[in-house]
């Protein structure tokens, strides 16, 4: 499976989908002009990945510090897709948050609640880093 790497931008997160290293990450801020368009290749990539010999365990790390509502809707689609694939494959979704950043924690809790508390959707506290810029 080919990797998918997208560089982080001011309004777009970094996308690191590197099965050779067992690394699946979305990192940064997300409020692009068209989130649906931005997420489309990511959703397609995961579809193809699970269709073609995925790793025995796939851990997707979502390390977001800011997003708008249309990005949240796109993220919902991604999480639903991953949970769906998790019925046949070993999939874990880690939703990271900084302890100072209630918003991201709350959105994680919201997802967990709305998706009927899936065991493989896990909230993970990051070490507080004063240097990280949590505003867009």
């Amino acid at each position, binding site marked *: 499976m080919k990797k998918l790497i997208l560089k982080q931008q*001011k*309004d777009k997160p970094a996308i690191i989908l590197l099965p050779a290293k067992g690394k699946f990450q979305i990192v940064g801020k997300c*409020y*692009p002009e068209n989130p649906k368009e931005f997420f489309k290749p990511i959703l397609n990539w995961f579809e193809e990945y699970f269709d073609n010999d995925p790793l025995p365990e796939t851990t997707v790390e979502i390390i977001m510090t800011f997003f*708008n*509502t*249309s990005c*949240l809707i796109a993220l919902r689609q991604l999480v639903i897709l991953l949970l769906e694939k998790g019925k046949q494959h070993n999939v874990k979704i880690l939703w990271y948050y900084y302890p100072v*950043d*209630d918003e991201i924690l709350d959105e994680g809790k919201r997802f967990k609640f709305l998706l009927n508390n899936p065991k493989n959707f896990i909230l993970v506290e990051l070490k507080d880093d004063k240097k990280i810029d949590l505003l867009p």
Partner: protein
Amino acid sequence: MLQSIDTPQILWDLLSATSIEDMNYIYKGQFSEDIAHYLLLLAERNIERNQLKGRLKKRVFHIMVESVQNITRHQDIIEEHNEQKAMFAIQKFRNIYLVTTANLVKKIKVDYLKNKLETINNMTEEELNKFYKEVLMEDSFTNKGGAGLGLIEIARKSGNKLYYDFVDFNDEFSLFYMHTYIYLDENQNKKIYLPRIYSFDFIKELHRTLEKNNILLVYCSVFDQPSLISLISILSSQIKGNLPFRKKIIGTLVEMLQNIMHHGYIRIQDKEHKGALGLFYIAYQNRVFTLNTINYISNDKIKQLKSKLHYINSLSIDDVEKLYNEQLMNFNDDDSPLGGLGFLEMRLKSRNKLKFEIKTINERISYFSLKVEFKLS
């Protein structure tokens, strides 16, 4: 019933006289290096959209840089007052860029400055170039930091006079206004008629309105993704409060500005980005941040918009939360004319009702003004 929103009349005047190719951008407050950077980025974005080429773009940009630096240089001396008073305004009308600055100066310097400005204004292009070299040499010897050099540069690059005014501020300080413009078409007849919003007097009046209402920034132009990114970067550092509070405001800001970008009626045709004409301002008074956007909407959208907003305002926060969750799980059409989860998010984040106003322009279009308030606890 409409929630009344008291957007200052001068801002309505500003928007109604701004066409989609033009720009009005007024920033008042603290001038740090970072902020100067993003102010210039925002202006640069407009210059790019207008496809300004090499040399002209450089000239316009140079004037803006010198003007901002003129403010930051003075700021060090009297930081305390200047924080609230200093202003940088950039406007574009057809092929004219206009730059206006305001900052406090010590009264004892007023005569010196007047003198300098008069000297510069009375010089021919040739004399200015000579004077520039002289001052440059002088400065490198005396190491005075070249406050005068900036003024000469602005005059040289603009090719026009530096209009100025000094207004009493207190016993010690005066407010120093400076205004100049640059024609992008060097061959054009310079007696072009400028609408009122581009006059020196209008900008001074606007500055007083900004003062009175504690408005930090006014942006009236096309809202597209690049201008949104610059605006957000400028404001991120300006908003007080703890992180969750600031994130709520910035989050709401993104929703409001993208609403204009996606749904505004008067739109640009740009291959790369969507964009629409509107006005945005942010004010901070009595521990309340106010975000206000105004854009054009088609009259056939009004009924639906009004009923959606009235409905959201009629719900308790708990019910808004429920509706938000429902919509989040079911929402599939991001081309919805109502902007998806945006309004719900604004209501949830601000914990306040969304104030709005619709003003009819003609049988086809109206203004839609939306105001969201945040109380700093």
